[in-house]
């Protein structure tokens, strides 16, 4: 069964023909949310001043997002305001990404456009809201579209570029970067496993020694598996830190 775009549109299993139609991907997402909530609940349930091993690991991960992504970008004060949303973006993306490599699930919750689009929209609304809240609407758009320190004729060129890059490209690139990384990852992995299946259990079983190629495709599968784990972490980091950076750019005094 070769991988195809159909993988991302599995048949509906529940609530068909309603807005709440559930397919395999949505079930995987629900599972991710349940596991994530469980981990967060258990991880924060009995936190001690002097942490045990599990708490050290939990605090390390949360502390990484808190300090390296949020506080270092936004500072302590703004960081605290936007911390829940940015943390949600990071951990939800991470959880949804990782299901792409979990055996049995093997489809990333973020490889369907819904979640990348929602997160990009939230980041988009968030940085515009933060900028308007900080500077007022007029000043914010002025600073964003007419960067100071430039001779005015250049604005003819610069303002459309700034508009496109800030207000159009940012949300699109946030969405597509996450979506396409996970889609491509799924394709690669599924191709490797499907090829291995075909070579080892169809060709080799028929006595065709070309089937030994399956060993190679299996090795590639392992390599891509590790790569996808890395990509899952990296893309969660990227979308969280880009959201933080967009907010930070919107709230700084001068661009």
């Amino acid at each position, binding site marked *: 069964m070769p991988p195809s775009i159909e993988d991302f549109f599995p048949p509906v299993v529940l*609530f068909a023909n309603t807005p*709440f139609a*559930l397919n395999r991907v949505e079930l995987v*997402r629900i599972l991710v949310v349940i596991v994530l909530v469980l981990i*967060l609940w258990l*991880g924060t349930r009995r936190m001690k001043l002097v942490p045990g091993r599990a708490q050290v690991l939990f605090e390390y991960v949360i502390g990484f997002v808190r300090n390296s992504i949020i506080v270092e970008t936004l500072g302590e004060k703004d960081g605290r305001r936007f911390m829940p949303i940015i*943390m949600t973006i990071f*951990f939800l993306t991470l959880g949804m990404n990782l299901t792409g490599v979990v055996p049995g699930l093997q489809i990333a919750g973020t490889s369907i456009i819904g979640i990348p689009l929602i*997160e990009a929209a939230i980041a988009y609304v968030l940085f515009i809201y933060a900028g308007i809240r900080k500077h007022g609407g007029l000043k914010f758009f002025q600073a964003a579209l007419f960067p100071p320190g430039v001779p005015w004729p250049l604005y003819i060129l610069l303002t459309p570029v700034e508009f496109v890059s800030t207000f159009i490209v940012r949300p699109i690139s946030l969405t597509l970067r996450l979506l396409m990384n996970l889609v491509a990852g799924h394709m690669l992995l599924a191709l490797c496993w499907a090829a291995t299946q075909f070579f080892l259990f169809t060709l080799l079983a028929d006595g065709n020694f070309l089937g030994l190629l399956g060993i190679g495709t299996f090795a590639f599968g392992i390599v891509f598996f590790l790569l996808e784990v890395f990509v899952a972490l990296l893309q969660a980091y990227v979308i969280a830190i880009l959201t933080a950076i967009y907010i930070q750019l919107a709230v700084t005094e001068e661009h």
Partner: protein
Amino acid sequence: MHNAFLAVAAANDNPLLPTVPDLIWGGLAFLIVLVVFIRLVIPRLNALLDARSDAIEGGLKRAEEAQAGAREALEQYNAQLAEARAEAARIREQAREDAKSIRAELVEAASAEAARITANALVTIDAERKSALVSLRSEVGSLAIDLASGVIGETLTDDEKASAIVDRFIADLEAVDRAQEAAKVKA
């Protein structure tokens, strides 16, 4: 609503177009996790961090207090030590004074004793000398008269004459003696 849903569902095979259930379930997932972070994780995390920084600050404060206490005790100890040193010096000084006065008393007593002994000795010597002089006077007188009698060939039996001569002689002797003593005292 139903028609809109069907329209989106018709574009099912385009991965860039979201379906309504996709957006609904994705949005719900985001909301649930966001609520967990707002209501559960962030407050607990902040409480923990605050408690921890409190504990660290409290520890620092306690250490500071302990240090201050130690410093106070050291100062007290130093003060006591200085006091004890002064006391010791005072006692030593007192002892030195006492020793000095005791020594002076002893010296005084000894010199008084010595003076007394000397005076006694002088008195004794004087008495001895006087008695010696008395006996000498009688013996020397008779001896001298015997000798003189022998020399001049006459008997100086006349007692009056004899005693006059002897007295003169003795007086001379005494004068010489006194002159000698005076010279000795001057020297």
